[in-house]
């Protein structure tokens, strides 16, 4: 394989992974906040929870659209096999995200008609369903997709396995944890205290999920196992589990000392490490167990043209995203009603 045809897909894999990770982290706490509606019944406090993300959620969800568009333009082979294979969870996810997205506005604007409770349920249910589906989709990709001649040839429920359900539940737990830690950072009083309480429980749940998925993944396919156990690979991959445990200590200490951001940063660290770990397992496959990232790539003329734009635009996007978060920084209380 010549230079560009080899390296462009590798560069794009890194960019795509970064875009997905940014999405998972940013929309993760949005969706987590939605799920935490289940344990916070007070309308005033629910409004505060929503207000911490109301100015930024649109931007957060845009990373998911970028992920879809990048897959479409740069790895059309993966886009055209993974999406039909994961048809039902993707359908369920976008429908859930529709309910979640419009509920931001609708739960306020239907308040005088007495139907706003239904949109609170839509916000919570949409967030929970979207989180579960995202986990199940991830699990579905890792466990592999049946492909012949570059096209999906399996059944509509192939993705539904105990492994993908475990992944779905773990991601729900992880997002709820991100949401709780975000609220610890961005709110005050009763809400902050109750989120600290829930963060501890959710962290235990996530930790169990991480251990279970980590032990299960290498059993799915031979190459995954080799990646994690063969010498000298083990030297490079060993830091991942070690860091997960180190972060657990920092997390507990951060909660005990009531540090505002330490728990959130630790939760982000977990997501980063899990994501890296899964990447290590499946690389270089984009559609496991048969199609590599080179198999599914669009021609170099497409990838190069898009890379030029991305190299210029992504730093600009990150700059103004940071700016817009800074405008709305600080603790949010019931006195600030954005809506």
């Amino acid at each position, binding site marked *: 394989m010549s230079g560009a045809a080899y390296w462009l897909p590798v560069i794009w894999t890194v960019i795509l992974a970064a875009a997905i990770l940014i999405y998972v982290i940013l929309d993760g706490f949005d969706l987590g906040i939605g799920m935490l509606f289940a344990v916070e019944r007070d309308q005033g406090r629910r409004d505060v929870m929503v207000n911490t993300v109301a100015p930024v959620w649109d931007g957060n969800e845009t990373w998911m659209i970028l992920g879809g568009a990048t897959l479409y333009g740069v790895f*059309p082979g993966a886009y055209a096999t993974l999406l039909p294979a994961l048809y039902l969870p993707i359908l369920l996810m976008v429908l859930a995200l529709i309910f979640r997205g419009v509920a931001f*506005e609708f739960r306020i604007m239907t308040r005088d008609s007495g139907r706003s409770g239904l949109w609170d349920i839509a916000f919570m249910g949409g967030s929970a369903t979207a989180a579960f589906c995202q986990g199940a989709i991830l699990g579905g990709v890792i466990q592999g997709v049946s492909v012949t001649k570059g096209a999906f040839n399996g059944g509509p429920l192939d993705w539904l396995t105990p492994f993908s359900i475990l992944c779905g539940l773990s991601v729900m737990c992880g997002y709820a944890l991100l949401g709780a830690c975000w609220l610890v950072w961005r709110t005050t009083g009763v809400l902050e205290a109750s989120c600290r309480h829930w963060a501890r429980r959710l962290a235990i749940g996530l930790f169990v999920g991480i251990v279970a998925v980590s032990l299960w993944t290498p059993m799915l396919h031979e190459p995954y196992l080799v990646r994690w156990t063969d010498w000298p690979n083990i030297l490079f991959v060993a830091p991942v589990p070690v860091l997960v445990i180190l972060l657990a200590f920092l997390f507990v200490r951060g909660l005990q000392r009531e540090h505002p951001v330490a728990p959130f940063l630790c939760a982000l660290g977990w997501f980063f490490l899990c994501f890296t770990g899964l990447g290590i397992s499946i690389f270089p496959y984009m559609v496991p167990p048969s199609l590599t990232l080179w198999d599914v790539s669009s021609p170099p003329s497409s990838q190069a043209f898009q890379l030029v734009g991305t190299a210029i635009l992504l730093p600009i996007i990150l700059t103004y995203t940071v700016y817009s978060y800074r405008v709305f920084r600080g603790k949010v209380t019931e006195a600030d009603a954005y809506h």
Partner: protein
Amino acid sequence: MVSAASALLLARFQFAFTVGVHIVFPAFSIGLAAYLAVLEGLWLRTDKQVYLDLYRYWIKIFSVVFGMGVVSGLVMSYEFGTNWSVFSQKAGPITGVLLSYEVMTAFFLEAGFLGVMLFGMNKVGRGLHFAATCCVSVGTLISMTWILASNSWMQTPAGYSIDPATGRFMPEDWLAIIFNPSFPYRLVHMGMAAFLSVAFIIGGTAAWHMMRDRRKGLPISQPVKVMFSMAMWMATIVAPLQILAGDAHGLNTLKHQPVKIAALEGDWETESRAPEILFGIPNMKTEHTDYAIKLPFAGSLILTHSLDGKVPGMKDFPADQRPPSPIIFFTFRIMIALGMLMAATGFLSLYMRWRGRLFTSPLLHRMALVMAPSGFLALLCGWVTTEVGRQPWTVYGLLRTADSVSPIMLPSMAISMTAFVVVYVIVFGTGIGILLRMLSRQPEEGEHDLSEQGTASVLGTRSHPETVLSSPDHGA
């Protein structure tokens, strides 16, 4: 085979349904964001309260419309892969890249500054806030540019080669791909359609408030007058320009997709001195347009701008390359009729303005109210005309729609179709209900900002003053 044909039909219907719902919201956002930028600019320049009032009134509408655009658009970015995987695989190297550029240059810009635009007036100062509004508005225009480049490329493909081994479209010349032959026409036509659609919504809203106030014997408020006047200027100037743009787009289509023109005109035989069929029912089986009412020479005159110009007929093209004439014959005529009526509304308003009766003429107000949805109806009809007119191809002349669809089982497709219809009726039905209730409330003098109002105030009641006072110092 029956199940494959049904799956194809369902996939097509699902795409038409989801994109048909979606297209309204971005068009609304394009027009409204530009209007908001103009209002805020006028406010900064003149310091007149009325512009700020109108800005604050319409930005609440914008926040709902934009949210619905985002969620319905998310569906689209995955639907290509789920339902049209063969198309995605073959055309993704071109259309996927254009879509990615849209996300990076437009979606992020809009979403990134939307928060500041909606909630940041007290946090960033007037100048920066105006910049945020302009960024959102420019973002909507950039978005339109990319998606129409992609859509136009499917209509008039250029700048590509086809890989013989895989049948994939390989980009050769990106400038030729983006500036493909129909792109400039489509861009101008769609842009003006978005502006007109929003102008007629604004004009209709103002007309409704004026009619209600007159019935109650109340004086008409300043914000209502200003928004009506602005909307009617837009109708007066842009509606006739849109007719010219549509004409130019039609000539461009005649050049590149003659069978589409033949089908939307219901013409079967190629003729010089062709008549224009005003009404009829095209029959694809008998290859004849039944009950046709014809206007002599008009067909040649409209399409070639000369009395004896040659106009194509569908019989010149193989039967399996003709688009379904019975659909686009009517959608095209509805669009044209609505366009004429919009221009007529503009002229009527100009006459009333000249006579000093812009805010008192019941005739004009009734017409403006009836015409409120006309822009969006015309936009949808035009979109159906051009997209159904592209059939039986996804990439014109190169990739058939029947060969573009995913190998998805019929049950999955049926489940998703049902789910989309149910969810869209609930969500967008509620959304439109909310929008109508928001519009039925008059813009007030001293309208409140989104960031300083209590939760219930969007629909009328004022917030408590302490809420207003406590927000500016937050987070500074």
